[in-house]
């Protein structure tokens, strides 16, 4: 694990975002109007369940955001390769490259090849995989029992860890509520707690079992098969999590300052400030988003190929492109929020408490920061959560059109893009596509459900009755 830490641009921004989020959490904890809605989110069962799922995704994304160049151990010059903490954790997955396609949990390649037998003859057959199921003597008969055994081990491990987690949680709760372990456990299991801990535990158990089960199988097999160049698809799908999260969060982070500042200024000051800001966003908005992104990315490509020597490694280059994509996506998506905030600021500037502040001689900046900003924060938050899933989905489409992330970067869009060429194959190669779709679907579904809950909690006016 020795090596030199490499901080990519997006890494830095992700951790900045993390700091901002934690800071906001601390700030919100002291303010009931912010704590209240979050409490409502946590108390809703859907909210709790999705938060647990998202936590697993975020954990993978964060682990995948600590990059370093592994030294060769002798203090010599490090190689150009940059790996992440996540890569070292799942080490094997990354290195175990096959020759070409293989189906999930297969022991042989998906295509026939000429195999040279020890006696010199060549036969045309499906060759054994170099890694997948390589420990089996006779894959045809041993594979199924082996899979079952590994599954059982994985599930048991997962359950054991879940049990530990559950016990720790119950003890913590019992300590806080000053009740004894038994009654706390009963309360929890009957779902009689204010915060739906039962849902949280159930979801955690499910996720942990999945994690351990897949870990067991992935160590010996290619859980989701391999792609054209023989890379493990499960690994690709996991690595794509970071890309999806980065697009979904950093884009918003990039656009927020401009959207908030300009939106509030336009609504509060009105007059020529308003005209100018409205002009700016109408102009930007009138260019079809995809085309603006396409134009910008094409220009970036030209720039990058003309200045190829400025990038130390492929990873860095891909990372810059990712960041650039976030920025350009931000440029195309800030206008909606800006317009919303402008309208809200227009309303708020006429509200009595702002008038009262003016009557009390409070300055413009203080009015904006103390009276307007806190009262539009919930709109910002809702739109951030709302945008997330749309951005994750957009990445897939953009990468499909080749104006998304760098083709060398792992992303669900790239996986789909490369897999669709194989749809015409007979028999069909479906697993890359399926893996990308499922990983993406779970993330987006969780985000969508969470955004519903958040919207309900922060904006009761729009609450839809159940």
């Amino acid at each position: 694990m020795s090596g030199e830490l490499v901080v990519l641009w997006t890494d830095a921004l992700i951790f900045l975002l993390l700091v901002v989020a934690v800071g906001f959490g601390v700030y919100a904890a002291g303010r009931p109007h912010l704590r209240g809605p979050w409490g409502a989110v946590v108390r809703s069962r859907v909210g709790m369940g999705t938060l647990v799922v998202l936590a697993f995704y975020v954990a993978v994304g964060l682990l995948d955001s600590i990059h370093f160049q592994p030294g060769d151990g002798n203090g010599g010059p490090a190689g150009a390769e940059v790996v992440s903490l996540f890569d070292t954790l799942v080490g094997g997955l990354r290195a175990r490259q096959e020759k070409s396609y293989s189906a999930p949990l297969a022991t042989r390649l998906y295509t026939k090849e000429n195999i040279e037998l020890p006696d010199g003859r060549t036969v045309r057959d499906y060759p054994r995989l170099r890694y997948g199921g390589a420990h089996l003597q006779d894959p045809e008969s041993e594979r199924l029992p082996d899979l079952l055994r590994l599954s059982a081990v994985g599930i048991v491990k997962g359950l054991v860890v879940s049990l530990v987690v559950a016990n720790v949680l119950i003890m913590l709760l019992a300590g806080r509520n000053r009740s004894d372990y038994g009654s706390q456990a009963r309360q929890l299991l009957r779902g009689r707690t204010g915060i739906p801990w039962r849902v949280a535990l159930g979801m955690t158990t499910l996720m942990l079992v999945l994690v351990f089960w897949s870990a067991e199988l992935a160590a010996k097999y290619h859980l989701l098969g391999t792609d054209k160049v023989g890379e493990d698809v499960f690994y690709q799908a996991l690595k794509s999590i970071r890309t999806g999260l980065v697009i979904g969060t950093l884009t918003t982070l990039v656009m927020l300052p401009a959207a908030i500042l300009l939106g509030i200024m336009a609504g509060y000051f009105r007059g020529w400030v308003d005209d100018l800001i409205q002009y700016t966003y109408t102009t930007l908005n009138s260019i079809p988003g995809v085309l603006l992104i396409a134009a910008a990315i094409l220009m970036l490509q030209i720039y990058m190929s003309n200045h190829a020597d400025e990038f130390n490694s492929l990873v860095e280059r891909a990372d810059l492109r990712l960041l650039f994509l976030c920025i350009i996506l931000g440029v195309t998506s800030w206008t909606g929020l800006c317009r919303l905030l402008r309208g809200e600021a227009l309303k708020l500037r006429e509200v009595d408490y702002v008038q009262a502040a003016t009557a009390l001689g409070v300055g413009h900046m203080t009015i904006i920061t103390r009276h307007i900003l806190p009262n539009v924060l919930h709109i910002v938050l809702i739109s951030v959560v709302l945008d997330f899933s749309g951005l994750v989905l957009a990445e897939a489409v953009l990468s499909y059109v080749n104006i998304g992330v760098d083709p060398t970067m792992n992303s669900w869009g790239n996986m789909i893009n490369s897999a669709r060429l194989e749809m015409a194959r007979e028999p069909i190669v479906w697993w890359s596509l399926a893996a990308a779709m499922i990983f993406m679907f779970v993330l987006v579904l969780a985000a969508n459900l969470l955004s519903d809950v958040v919207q309900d909690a922060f904006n009761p006016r729009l609450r839809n009755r159940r």
Partner: protein
Amino acid sequence: MMAYIVRRVLYAIPILIGVNVLTFLLFFVVNSPDDMARMHLGMKRVTPEAIQTWKQERGYDRPLLYNDAAEGVGRLTDTIFFQKSLKLFQFDFGSSDSGRDIGYDISQRMWPSLAIAIPVLLVGLLVNITYALLIAFFRATYIDFWSVVLLVAMMSISGLFYIIGGQYLVSKLLHLVPISGYDTGWAAAKFLVLPVVIGVVGGVGAGTRWYRTLFLEEIDKDYVRTARAKGLSEPRVLFRHVLRNALIPILTGVVVVLPLLFMGSLITESFFGIPGLGSYTIDAINSQDFAIVRAMVFLGSVLYILGLLLTDISYTLVDPRVRLS
């Protein structure tokens, strides 16, 4: 009313100039025509002569803004900005980097785009409104709850999946319609059915959920209570009162996208091999044909602004409260 429209049209001019300047900056200043030429001719070992020829063939060899060499008005008109950017205002799109007339291509390709986009819009509207009304009628029951779950799940699925899955199921397994392609006249129908169905299905999640919210918001209002106090039955309340009011945001939301239907759908058209403007754009992006991308950016902006204008006008038509005087 006329004064209002005239004012809105005048207001569109500075925006289009803004778009024009922006694309000019993006395509000719951030990256020079030399860069583009090098990109097209291959990066390594390109002779300056080859670059010059490439630029000359496409008219990129002029100065950007001011031509010292020319005479009189030519000093301003014989420039890239005038020839390539300002001419867009006359809808003179010039020719593509591969030498085709963009204007002609657009006029040919917009019909297949419309052939998909209009049915998707209309059928989608019908399906979404019907489903949303149904949910509103059964609000606060299990039908409502599970419908919302279904809708959220549907909107969490990538559009790519609907297309790939639909193609695989309908065309490859069931062999109902061809996977992709296009034909002229009525023969095109068999190629259009699947993309339209997929377009509608892909839009149900977000669309129906949005309409449901609109309906439920209206249902809470005072005038609905008045309607019930009259003794109207629930379906009549929904159709006569709630739907009428909720149609205002729905219709204006539709009007704003109407002009953009010309632009076609990027993904659908390229998957189904339909020669519309969407696939035209994608091909241009993939072959890095900047002339086409530039033309499409401008066209898109014009259509968007037209959409805004139509929205404002449609408000005055459907909402008696909005009167322009």
